[in-house]
Every structure is written in C-alpha cells, then in structure tokens.
C-alpha cells in the first residue's frame, strides 16, 4: 500500500512537471525557458526519490544526486547562454 502511494505520488510529480513544461517551453521570454532545468531538477529529484522508496532500488538516490549536480550545471549554462550579451564575457561568443 505504501508502495502504491509512493508510486502514485511520483506519477503526480511527473504530471506537475509536464504541466510546468507547457509554460516553460512555450513561455515567450527566454527567462521562462531558463527555468526548464530548475523545473526538471527539482521535479526529477522528487520523482526519483519517491521511486527509490517505492521500488526499493536505493541506486535511484544516487541518480537523484547526480541529477541535482548536473541540473545546477545545466541551469548555469542556460542562464549564461540565454542572457543578452552583457552577461557574456566579450569575445566569448565570437570564434573563427
């Protein structure tokens, strides 16, 4: 019963992430899109932790840890490259 509850909770979090995606992917400003990594990071980690408890696969907590780090990294990459040019170091975007 606990297993079903936890699995259903992870399904709910997935639904929330999916609905959030509508805004994040469709949102007009670039600032909206930058939130994608954040949304997936937090939601994905919640999902993985719930699944880890539901299916008793403790390795999923490791996946959640890796996701936390890489989502932070990806968010930083999004913010730097999605910003207007005064956030980029001059010369960094022009290569030849």
């Amino acid at each position, binding site marked *: 019963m*606990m297993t079903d*509850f*936890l699995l259903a*909770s992870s399904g*709910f*979090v997935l639904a*929330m992430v999916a*609905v*959030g995606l*509508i*805004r*994040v992917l469709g*949102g007009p*400003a*670039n*600032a*909206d899109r*930058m*939130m994608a*990594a*954040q*949304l997936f*990071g*937090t*939601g994905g*980690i*919640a999902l993985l*932790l*719930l699944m880890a*408890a539901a299916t008793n696969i*403790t390795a999923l*907590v*490791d996946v*959640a*840890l890796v996701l*936390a*780090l890489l*989502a*932070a990294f990806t*968010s*930083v990459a999004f*913010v730097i490259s*999605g*910003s*207007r040019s005064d*956030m980029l170091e001059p010369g960094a975007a022009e290569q030849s």
Partner: protein
Amino acid sequence: MSIVLDTFTVLAVTGGLFFFLAGTVGLLRFPDPLTRLHALTKADNLGLGLIVLGLLPQTNAPVGALKLLVAWLLVQLSGATIAQLIAREARRGMPQA
C-alpha cells in the same frame, strides 16, 4: 511504531505534493517571468523538502538518510543562486520598475 512512521510519511509526502501543485499552478497562471520564477523555486523547493522529510523514515541506513539530505541541500543551494541569476535576466527584459 511502523504505523506512526508510515502515517508521517504519507502526511509529509502529501504536503510536498500540495506544494508542487501550488508551484505549478503559479508557474502557469502568474503574469510575468519574475513571479513565475518565485512560484517555481519557492514552492518546488518546499515541496521537495517535505517529500525528503517524509521519505526519511522509509530509509534504513544512516547513509540513505544522509544522501537524501545532501540531495535536498544541493537543490536548495543551486536553486537559490540560479533564481537570482534568472531574475536578473528577467528584469532586464522588463520596463524599469
């Protein structure tokens, strides 16, 4: 004892799910990027925190609980900083206020 722990888990996880719902509703319905950012980061972080709290009784080893807390800590740290950076970008696109 196990019944008490299980009830605690169910309550905390449900609270976490509620905050996820609130965050998503805010993300969809708030008028501009700054407010949506607030909904996403604050509500989702609190939701994750409650879920982690609820899952703590379900792990057996102290290592398992430690990993859960480290994951939550990482999300808090990176979430707060990234929100600052995204907000800076969002403000640039708005008329001066």
